[in-house]
């Protein structure tokens, strides 16, 4: 199949949707399909080369969206790029990610003249904004043939606020890469190492809760260290941590999958203290694949990934006390950590990209089968 995939967020900035798009594209290519990706990306960053199947659509502009600053691209230049890309490739199916974001996906949807599969990633139920946008966007949204939601929560938003149903297919993860990663030099170390992965500057990611918990943990674990992977201002983080904690924090900055996998292999526990606005939690699946024990907030999305607490420890969101107790107990119990790691590896198999890509392919075929142009051709054949 010839598949055209559009990502609304810039590939120059790491993020969950971006990783999903690239991982799915690789997975589908592995199954022998032709995939092209269109995404905002600046080409002047030689340290992060784009895969050959990506067409960069120019620089993105940071726009506050869904509680983050989303790197979006829009305007006449973007419209032209989308049009040219769709004209240059004769796709069987277009797969648009997050088509409600004002970026390339929405443009591609407006211009589309073939079956469209749309994936909805976010699950923030901001009813008023979505309902208002819905009325305005309805004529465009009518062109979507089939919808995919990455979690039951994303599907619920779909049903309740966007007026449509969706097939539920979870995010994928490169299980082999995470399972086989080597730890960073000097790790694993004695004394306890806690990990954090994500844009730590964003309040909703819950770094302040983790810092609060770490103050407590440091009393029983004087050598405890926090390894931070993610995009953000390291100086501001160390200032916020205060002099007592700052010396225990090592910020690795934004990392590709390889660096993330190495960091996960290096820590004793991964902590995901997010406060809300999470629809899936890719980092959780990556940690499970890596065999890293997880302590996470008890958000609905995380509860699902962690099999209701069977594959990881859930603590009350926003509570430093609950988090410090859980971290303390896990650091103190290697057997429990080993059991969690084994349970996590078993669970991660369902998110392996080849498994997920096959299910997405079924949806493509479903959309392709429901293409009105095929019906028209059949009718013409019958009448002639």
């Amino acid at each position, binding site marked *: 199949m010839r598949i055209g995939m559009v990502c609304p967020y810039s590939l120059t900035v790491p993020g969950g949707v971006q990783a999903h798009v690239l991982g799915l594209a690789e997975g589908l290519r592995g199954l022998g399909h032709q995939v092209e990706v269109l995404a905002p990306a600046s080409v002047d960053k030689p340290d992060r080369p784009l895969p050959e199947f990506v067409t960069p659509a120019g620089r993105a502009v940071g726009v506050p969206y869904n509680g983050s600053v989303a790197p979006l691209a829009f305007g006449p230049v973007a419209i032209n790029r989308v049009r040219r890309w769709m004209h240059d490739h004769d796709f069987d199916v277009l797969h648009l990610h997050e088509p409600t974001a004002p970026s390339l996906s929405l443009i591609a949807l407006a211009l589309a003249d073939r079956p469209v599969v749309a994936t909805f990633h976010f699950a923030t139920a901001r009813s008023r904004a979505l309902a208002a946008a819905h009325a305005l966007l309805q004529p465009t949204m*009518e062109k979507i043939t089939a919808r995919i939601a990455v979690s039951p929560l994303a599907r*619920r938003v779909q049903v309740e606020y966007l007026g449509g149903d969706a097939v539920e297919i979870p995010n994928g993860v490169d299980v082999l890469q995470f399972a086989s990663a080597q730890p960073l030099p000097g790790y694993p170390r004695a004394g306890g190492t806690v990990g954090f992965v994500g844009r730590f500057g964003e309040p909703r990611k819950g770094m302040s809760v983790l810092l609060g918990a770490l103050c407590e943990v440091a009393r029983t674990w004087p050598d405890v260290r926090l390894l931070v992977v993610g995009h953000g201002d390291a100086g501001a983080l160390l200032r916020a941590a205060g002099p007592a904690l700052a010396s225990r924090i090592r910020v690795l900055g934004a990392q590709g999958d390889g660096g993330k996998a190495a960091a996960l292999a290096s820590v004793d526990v991964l902590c995901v203290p997010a406060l809300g606005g999470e629809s899936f939690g890719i980092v959780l699946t990556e940690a499970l694949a890596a065999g890293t024990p997880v302590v996470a907030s008890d958000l609905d999305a995380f509860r699902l990934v962690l099999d209701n607490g069977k594959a990881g420890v859930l603590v009350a969101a926003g509570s430093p006390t609950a988090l410090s107790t859980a971290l303390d107990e896990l650091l103190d119990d290697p057997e429990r950590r080993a059991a969690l790691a084994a349970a996590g590896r078993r669970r991660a198999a369902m998110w392996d990209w080849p498994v997920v890509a096959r299910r997405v392919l079924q949806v493509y075929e479903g959309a392709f*089968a*429901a293409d009105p142009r095929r019906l028209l051709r059949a009718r013409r054949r019958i009448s002639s």
Partner: protein
Amino acid sequence: MRFAWVAVTVGVSGAAWGAIRAATRLDRLHMRTDAAWAALDAALHQRALAVSALNGNVALCGAALAAVHAQPSAREELENELGRVLSALNRGGLAPASASRLADAEQRVVIARRVYNDAVRDTRALRLHRMVRWLRLAGTAPLPRYFEIAEPALAGYGPELDGAGA
């Protein structure tokens, strides 16, 4: 006086433009619904074929044949009946190839039904619009109906949580 004429002209052409746009959208939606129904019908046929490939189960074959050859008005009920028989079927006793073919066909029915019902939902929303009803933009096309059948519980498909998947 001239201003009034301009206002009337603008108003009339605006209304005409809106009506043409709605009619175009409606035409597109009817096509989408028809095509989605053709695809759902094909997926249901594929499921029936997968069932009839299970050797020797006469009751199942009968249910499958009855469903795909049903009158349109009885189709939902008979497809549902087939779904019920299938959910009671012990998959462990099947040959692996036929079992996976059946599971694949069932998943494709789920997808095709979502695609069809989505098309119906969008079409009905526009059909019930005031302007579309007053100007009878839909002509004689019947109002499309949802296809409601119980979905099979597919084992091993994604994480489950009590109440959250509903």
